[in-house]
């Protein structure tokens, strides 16, 4: 039963989630609760090992539900590492710790399913696993009105998004009679798509666009990010977004038919996302807007996938490579930024004024936040710079000069709000801070933050190392 082995990663994750739930009933409090974190980490590690083990050995498996090529494996690993990072830095809730970590594992599961998607149904179910997990995570802090509000908003809108997705898939299915992406790809080759299929894919893009928070399907992002606990917001920004773009990758054949649409989403996200952040005063909303803009950059990479490159170029310079790299780079930066922020300010609404002087009173998380923000802004000595450069150079290589320049201008606008964060963090004295008390962070959390901030810098000096780590570990 070779093909069964192929779903080993998914199986490990789901089984361990269930195990975790069972264990959590035994370990409601005390030091045992730390065990939950380590079980999760262990599960993710085991899933990663399984991924590496199965990578490329069996090809399409389970009737095309999962696709275990080296590439999808690397995407899955990237997403798993992001979830693992969230697991490591996430504070353990006093109640429902088991549920929390189980949900994180479910998120990992959804991401892996999406990264290796080979089938429309897998896509739908993967997105649903991820979404449902995230609804709960957003509304996890049910004592907070904002949290509930965000949770319900995300639930409704994500439901609408999923419905669009399913509806679009249904129309496509109605035309081609298959759910397999490979077959869909084959059936579009060299043929003009009927309008109904075009429309179906269009609605499908609405659904994916919603998960990505691409303009104009971005509206939910700021409210939800703000309402969610930091780890959840980080996950929405990183793993969920990465999984969505990864799920979009097999649909690169859409670039023939829907180029204009995707380009519009891309340009719109890059511009509107950055414009939205311009004068925002609440930090999590700023990060949300920034995530919208980053989707634009990712889509820019997606647009270039079909481009023929000169054969002499190294294989590492493909658009897919740039996208995976960027998923990791952006994911780690966004997660890091949310976590570092959460480490300093735990309340739901964090305004820029709440950051005043934290550079002095909380130097370590502040410095980490600084580095992550620099990375988000794409300034040098952070991997964000290389990530962005990979994408933009890919766009240039593909000849999409206008889009690339729009993106560059967008990132110039975006710099404004990143710098605002830095300014408020460092250039205002602590006395100006309306809240004098700060959170205490565990040294473990600090260590993880420092390590990843250091990684952001170190990998910026050796970006290729990171690249090969991502693409070539198996």
């Amino acid at each position: 039963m070779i093909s069964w082995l192929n779903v080993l990663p998914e199986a490990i994750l789901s089984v361990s989630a269930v195990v975790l739930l069972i264990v959590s009933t035994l370990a409601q409090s005390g030091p045992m609760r730390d065990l939950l974190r380590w079980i999760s980490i262990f599960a993710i590690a085991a899933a990663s090992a399984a991924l590496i083990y199965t990578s490329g050995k069996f090809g399409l498996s389970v009737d095309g539900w999962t696709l275990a090529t080296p590439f999808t494996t690397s995407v899955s690993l990237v997403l798993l590492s992001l979830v693992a990072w969230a697991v490591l830095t996430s504070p353990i809730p006093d109640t429902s710790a088991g549920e929390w970590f189980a949900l994180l594992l479910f998120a990992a599961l959804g991401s892996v399913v999406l990264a290796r998607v080979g089938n429309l149904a897998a896509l739908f179910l993967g997105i649903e696993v991820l979404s449902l997990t995230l609804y709960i995570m957003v509304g996890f802090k049910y004592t907070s009105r904002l949290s509930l509000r965000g949770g319900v908003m995300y639930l409704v809108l994500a439901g609408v998004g999923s419905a669009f997705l399913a509806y679009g898939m249904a129309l496509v299915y109605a035309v081609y009679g298959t759910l397999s992406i490979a077959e869909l790809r084959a059936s579009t080759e060299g043929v003009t798509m009927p309008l109904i299929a075009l429309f179906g894919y269009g609605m499908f893009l609405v659904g994916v666009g919603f998960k990505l928070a691409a303009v104009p399907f971005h509206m939910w992002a700021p409210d939800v990010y703000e309402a969610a606990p930091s780890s959840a917001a980080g996950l929405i920004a990183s793993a969920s977004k990465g999984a969505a773009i990864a799920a979009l990758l097999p649909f690169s054949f859409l670039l023939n038919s829907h180029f204009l649409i995707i380009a519009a989403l891309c340009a719109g996200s890059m511009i509107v996302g950055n414009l939205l952040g311009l004068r925002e005063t609440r930090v999590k909303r700023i990060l949300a807007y920034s995530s919208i803009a980053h989707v634009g950059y990712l889509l820019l990479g997606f647009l270039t996938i079909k481009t023929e490159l000169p054969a002499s170029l190294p294989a590492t310079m493909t658009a897919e490579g740039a996208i995976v790299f960027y998923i990791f780079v952006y994911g780690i930066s966004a997660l890091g930024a949310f976590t570092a922020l959460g480490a300093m300010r735990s309340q739901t609404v964090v305004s820029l004024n709440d950051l005043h002087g934290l550079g002095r009173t909380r130097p370590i998380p502040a410095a980490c936040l600084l580095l992550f923000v620099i990375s988000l802004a794409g300034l040098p000595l952070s991997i964000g710079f290389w990530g962005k450069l990979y994408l933009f150079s890919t766009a240039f290589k593909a000849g999409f000069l206008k889009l690339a320049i729009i993106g560059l201008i967008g990132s110039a606008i975006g710099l404004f709000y990143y710098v605002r964060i830095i300014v408020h963090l460092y250039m205002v004295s602590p006395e100006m801070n309306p809240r004098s008390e700060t959170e205490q962070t565990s040294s473990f959390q600090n260590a993880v933050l420092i390590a990843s901030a250091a990684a952001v810098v170190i990998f910026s000096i050796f970006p290729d190392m990171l690249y090969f780590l991502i693409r070539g570990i198996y």
Partner: protein
Amino acid sequence: MPFAEPALVVATILFFIGVTGVIVRRNLLFVLMSMEVMLNAAGLAFVAGSALHGEPDGQIFFLFILPVAAAEVAIGLALAVLIYRKFQTLDLWSIADAAGE
């Protein structure tokens, strides 16, 4: 089946009625119902597609939509109860306008 294509149209109409419902309704319960309508319409479209090609994949997809709808409603209604407790209303506009925290 000859009704496959008309059924697609019906699904489309239902779907967009659902979307309209989500947009215009202010009460969370109605919004959730509209969402159900949308999911259901998507399922209908799948079944129509399945009928068009005479193969089971579409129907199977509907089988996947079912638990999704159920799970969404379960969580949605749980949230609705909590929200009603917190805000004393299910009116999404008032909830949005209510001061956070």
